[in-house]
């Protein structure tokens, strides 16, 4: 077996793990605005700046909208950029999310996933980033602080790749991960610096046919963020979708390269299958709930139940093929949503997983569980109940409720 690089153990919360990864990734510009539960990231980064541990230009903007606008501008200058946000902050960025992806600015953003107002709630759910699923950002959701650390490092490689050049969100569940201390294995500074490398820029042709790097440069003036009428706009958008498709392959490559470096991989980078090979009933989830679900699957397996778990690590681009093949043997699937599409007959993850399974020959039953909104805890007993419901569906060959709510007073 190939030897893995030297690492050391640190007690870090999810937010601290993110900050540590950013510190090691040779980031040029960080522009951000504080919001719970992301604040620790920028506070920690402020500490690095104050102690001269980073060369980064740290811009404490007056709003999230300006934070992303500043990151975008720095990014098209050729700089490596990072920001972090959550909930209302991400919602305030909404306009700029589309501008950033449309400008092909590979900004990396950590989102400590949190509920949206009203009523005001600072606790964890995924309503914030799920609402931005069509904003053209790659979205990766992590299971624990270790993965938060690893994924931020990987994110720079994915976003900045010249075949992708798209911004990326790394989502970690607010409080559950952002504020919980965990043992995190961190790489040495040089190893991270080498892994992320120096940002490469794609070359583009000027109107004179000269090949120049795609950035704002007084030596090669370029007009960025133009107005495009109906005769050109559509092609810009199609190119963004192609870049998303390229990301599907790249996320897998970066995941295996990282695994070779330090011994940690997350499924194939897109999805992580747990006991799915012969599973008959399975749950699909996004984020930290996968940790609890794994223990539930373990105990069900001990009892002889053919239970499995599919963690959707990458939500954008949606790994349609991987979802299909991972769930090939499953006869009943429960999709967990930590957000709600009001009036949409279930949550976003449900819609998309169900869509992915529509074209398979032997379609399984696919039901939806909305849970954990506003930080409501979900326990192993409730999750075990989900598997029991699936078994019931297989027994009766009947779905009583397509969309159900877990842990809700009704």
């Amino acid at each position, binding site marked *: 077996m190939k030897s893995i690089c030297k690492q050391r153990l640190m007690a870090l919360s999810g937010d601290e793990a993110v900050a540590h990864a950013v510190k090691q990734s040779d980031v*040029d*510009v960080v*522009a951000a605005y504080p919001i719970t539960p992301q604040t620790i990231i920028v506070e920690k980064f402020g500490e690095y700046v104050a102690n001269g541990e980073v*060369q*980064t*230009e740290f*811009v*404490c*903007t*007056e*709003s999230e*909208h*300006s*934070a992303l*606008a*500043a*990151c*975008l*501008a*720095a*990014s*098209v*200058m*050729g*700089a490596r*950029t990072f920001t972090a946000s959550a909930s209302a902050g991400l919602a305030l960025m909404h*306009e*700029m999310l589309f*501008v950033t992806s449309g*400008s092909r600015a590979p900004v990396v953003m950590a989102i400590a996933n949190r509920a949206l107002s009203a009523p005001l709630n600072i606790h964890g759910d995924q309503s914030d980033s799920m609402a931005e699923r069509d904003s053209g950002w790659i979205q990766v959701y992590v299971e624990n602080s270790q993965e938060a650390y690893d994924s931020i490092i990987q994110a720079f490689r994915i976003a900045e790749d010249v075949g992708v050049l798209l911004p990326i969100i790394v989502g970690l569940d607010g409080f559950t991960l952002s504020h919980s201390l965990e043992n995190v294995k961190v790489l040495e500074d040089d190893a991270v610096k080498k892994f992320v490398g120096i940002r490469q820029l794609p070359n583009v042709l000027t*109107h004179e046919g000269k090949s120049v790097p795609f950035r*704002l*440069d*007084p*030596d*090669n*003036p*370029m*007009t*960025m*963020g*133009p*107005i*495009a*009428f109906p005769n*050109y706009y559509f092609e810009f958008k199609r190119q963004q979708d192609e870049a998303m498709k390229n990301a599907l392959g790249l996320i897998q490559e970066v995941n295996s390269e990282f695994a070779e470096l330090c011994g940690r991989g997350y499924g194939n980078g897109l999805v992580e299958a747990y006991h799915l090979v012969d599973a008959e009933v399975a749950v699909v989830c996004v984020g930290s709930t996968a940790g609890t679900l794994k223990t539930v699957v373990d105990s069900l397996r001990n009892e002889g139940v053919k239970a499995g778990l599919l963690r959707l690590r990458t939500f954008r681009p949606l790994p349609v093929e991987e979802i299909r093949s991972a769930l090939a043997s499953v006869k009943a699937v429960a999709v967990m949503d930590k957000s709600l599409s009001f009036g949409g007959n279930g949550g976003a993850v449900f819609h998309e997983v169900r869509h992915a399974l529509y074209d398979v020959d032997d379609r399984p039953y696919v039901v939806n569980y909305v849970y954990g909104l506003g930080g409501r805890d979900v326990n192993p007993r409730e999750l075990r109940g989900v598997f029991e419901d699936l078994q019931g569906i297989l027994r009766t060959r009947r779905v009583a409720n397509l969309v159900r709510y877990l842990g809700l007073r009704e």
Partner: protein
Amino acid sequence: MTNQEWKFTTKDIAEKPDLFTSGHRACAGCGPATVLRLIMKATRGPTIVTEATGCMEVVSSIYPYTSWAVPWLHTAFETAAANASGIEAALKVMKRKGRLKQEHVDVLAFAGDGGTYDIGLQALSGAVERGHDFLFVLYDNEAYMNTGIQRSGGTPLGAATSTTPAGSVLPGKLEHKKPIAEIMLAHEMPYVATASPYYWKDMLTKVRKGLEVDGPAFLHVFAPCPRGWRSDPAKSIEYSKLAVESCVFPLWESVNGICQLSVPSKLVALAPQKKKSVSEYMQGQGRFRHLFTPQNKNLLEEIQRMTDEKWQRLLKKCQTEKT
């Protein structure tokens, strides 16, 4: 950057290649287009421009064409100052890490009155408070012209716009124009000035000063819009003269908080008898036509009185700060 002596002569200006080039789709007699073309003549070296959504952004960047011979970035309506912050931050860190080819690059942000007085004010205030080194130029045509002449915080009292039309009950906009340059002055920023394209040499000098100063600079430029003002396209530059002569738009500058009248307004101060009335400035502008009816006589008088009061306040301020 060290300060340098400069002279903007007609010949120099004519000979210097345009950085905001012809071929854009601005209307005939467009004040802002003239302002931008002239201002780009006052740049002193490598310059990056960022611009808010608005008339000048739209007319100059229709894909796959561009009027910009400098690197140029547009992202959104309210983001000119935030973009400038990001560009300046990137320049700083690139220089620190030895990745900047140029010794120095100037950052110039353009926005209209909407992108400055209203939707862009927060980002502008934040960027100035953080002290980024950039020049923010407001080209003020006194309404949302790009979207069809809606009122803004920069629209003057009594002006008819498409959202404040002059009706049988209401005489156009009921509120005063926000004192934007004074608001920026209150940020205690190193350089704030007003300019008008008729006095182009004064304007270009102020642009150069704004670029040379370390830290944020703000330039408020008067920019007539014949479409929005319902005025003769041939008279845009004339209105930018009358606005100064009537003290509707006095010219001044503040260096490190010390306010001074600029020469064109100083001449008005020295010869008050030559000061034009607001009516002389407003006549011929369709947006003020209704003010000349007997029904709105009081309002016109009120505008004259307010203009005089503001002028007196400015005179006092410039005198006090000189002594």
